[in-house]
């Protein structure tokens, strides 16, 4: 039963973070301080993603090896994006 409460709590957080992301734009931060706003928005997305993965996909309670599996894909995709973008800077 407490598990269900936890799920509800996370849902509320996710909802709130999404709203905050939109508010950052509505408040005009993207005009005044683009890169700071950029960082804030991406960090919020990352936190949301981790919450969904950890609790809704219950990676928290799976063997670590499952998380490593997914992390492998994530590292590969990040390496591709990062190195490719860097190569033309």
């Amino acid at each position, binding site marked *: 039963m407490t598990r269900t409460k936890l799920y509800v709590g996370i*849902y509320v957080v996710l909802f709130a973070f999404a709203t905050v992301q939109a508010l950052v734009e509505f408040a005009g931060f993207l005009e005044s301080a683009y890169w700071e706003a950029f960082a804030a928005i991406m960090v919020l997305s990352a936190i949301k993603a981790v919450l969904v993965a950890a609790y809704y996909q219950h990676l928290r309670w799976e063997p670590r090896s499952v998380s490593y599996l997914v992390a492998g894909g994530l590292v590969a995709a990040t390496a591709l994006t990062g190195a490719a973008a860097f190569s033309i800077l």
Partner: protein
Amino acid sequence: MSSHEHGLPPKSSISRWFLTTNHKDVGILYIVTALFFLVFGGVLALLFRIELWEPGAQVLSELSYNQSVSAHGLLMVFWFISPFAFGFANYVVPLQMGAEDLAFPRLNALSYWLYLFSGLLFGVSFFQGSTFAGGWTMYAPLNVPAYIPDGALGATTAVLALVMFVASVTVSSVNFLTTMYRMRAEGLRMRDLPIFSVSILLTVWMMLFAFAALLAALMILSADHIIGTKYFVYQITQSGAVTRTVGNEAASLLWAHLFWFFGHPEVYIVFFPALGVMAETFQTFAGRRLVGRKWFILSMVLVALQSFMVWMHHMFLTNINLTIKTVFMATTIGISLPFDLMMFSLIYTLIKGKVRFKTPFLFTLGSVILFIVGGITGVFLGAVVLDYQFRGTYWVVAHFHYVMVGGATALFGGLYYWYPKMTGKMYDEFLGKVNFAMYFVGFNLLYFPMFVAWETPRRVFEYEAGLTVWHQIATIGGLLLGASFLVMFYNLFVSLWRGADAGDTPWEYATSAEWAVSSPPPMDNFPGLPSYRDGSLSFLSESAVAARLRGDGTASTDGGDPTADGGVATGTALDTATETHLETEDVEHADHASIWPFAVGLGAFLTMLGLSGVQQGTIVGTEYAALLGVGGVVTFGSLVAMTREPFHAPEAALAERFPYADVEKLKLGMWVFLASDVVLFGAFIGSHAFIRVAHGWREWHNLIPAEHVTMPGLINTYLLLTSSFLVVLAMVAAKKGSRRGTVLSLVGTLALGIGFLVNKALEWQHLFHVHSEAFPQGWDLSTNVASSTFYLTTGLHGAHVAVGLVICAYMTIRAWNGAYQGDPDAIEYFGLYWHFVDIVWLFLFPLFYIL
């Protein structure tokens, strides 16, 4: 013994081969099919080798020449070499690791049929005007319709054939990984796997990620062909005049990055199985254990990891910066070092051996020699200043043929090595040696002159007259190499009847388990449950297994305490496995025949062929529309039929499952698939980011109309988050046994998902028809590169949502009928997928709506 054939017709019956899901049958199908594509690609090669007899175009027209070269490369790299290796993998790996079959036998058959039909589809492309003619590397923008003469139908089909091939590879990777982690014989730790199985394991890991990146590239390319997005073209030029620009400075580089990010791992994907065969046969025919086995394996692991960090050595002559060139030079050289170790390890394994020069060993020994030449010439290429000159010349051609076809040489050794096991017959040794002699001489006559004549540019028929003699020698070598295969096929074919009985173990000093069973092995592979608990292979009788399970159940895992609570998991893997095993005692010999994998493959073939008739958003003929319709119905119908068909692949009661002991096999399969999907979406998002960086990150806004606002995205975020939450509730309800709760939550999910799609459709409609000063014609798929990335990336996500909704609808109906109560696994696995789609959106929303 018909019950042991799992309801399959005998091998002599044609229908057997359409119905089978058995790994040994599928392995043989793979091998035979791969050899067919070898001949296909080989004939094309001989065609252009003859063209190269003298400079200039005599035999083939210019475009035919380009088609032959391109099709040859694609066929050999995709449809021959890897599938050939995976024929052995299918046949041998389950035997080596002590499994009765792969984890998902029907998916395995599906992989095969997708593979076969993708190859046939590629064949069809020749008859649609012309097939793809832009080289196997498919550089942009020569790969888009604007630069393909006389309509791109055949080229589109070729691209779609590749997409289908990648689908086959992905299914197969998921299957192999699940199998190898969950179905090893008791006492067989990961590190104890025979070396060929280790090589396949690492190959599959690379495949999982590398092919996902290729899939992204190919899907984008298909979109450029079919719906007219503009990813891979910077400007369209007609007879010298620029007619169209789309703001995509990164077009060509993007393709190069995506392709080589796949392409370099691919060369190891091709080579690793060969390495496994080399090590396996060196041990057997020298009668020695592999020297430094641990280091050999470690080297392979390092290479597999690092293979994803060397791709830009194919791009040294583009405008990538010096820093990144330095990094990639270092990683390239770094990756060559483990190979040194592996080669030395093989060579030292011979010492104190009792070397018998049987045909398989001759081939693998030859392969080692060829690889040494290929490796050394690769180091030349790793020196960037040298590469600057070798790039685009026959040096590269010679290098990669020495390594790739060198690797294939070992696989031919593997064919001779396992032939007695697969057929029960011995091939003719004399003919085998003749085959090898012709092959080896032919090979070197063909490829070595290319080093000498390296100044010849690649993929041309016009070359310096002074080099003619070298090209003539190469052509002669090519013909000899081709002829050597006639000897091989004759030998292997005739020996099916005339060959001596091979016995269980024709090779002295062979150690792995496939040699401990009859030739060919029985349907269930082993006379009992294989176990290595006592340090060597033994087969446990049913009663021994039962005793073991009653007595000391903990003996079976090295993955932690099997009775520990697995959190939300519904019981421990061991319990589940035991239950299934005992429960299904009587259905264990259940029907393992299924026609649906074949039907899905056929349906996909028709669909793809129909799709090739859609060019830039318009369909070119009613026959294509019909194909599309029929194909869609066949595919969907067969998938549903396959889902509803009773099919049981029991897991062994005792097995080594580290490190996934607590992850049920379907769940593990789902996670493995999701990991590859992470790379797919990662590559899509990465492509968007790369294009945007190249264009100027903040100038990007100028490509987007003001009407493109945040609100629809935010609403969709809310919808998707809520639907995710409902799936969680559905699972909780099912666990508690509340049918009402389950159905309600699933219906809610369905409704929200549909809402998501409807909202998106409205938004797109609006954007398609904006009328602003900057975008008087609206903002559609082909307006500019920003619109292309927006529609395609969010569209791919939308397609994931749609697939999820179909599954969700199916589950809702089942839940209504009372399914899942107290057994929420299926909902949980669907949830994994749905939440993943949710997570992707969490990144698409800011990237495409806010930033």
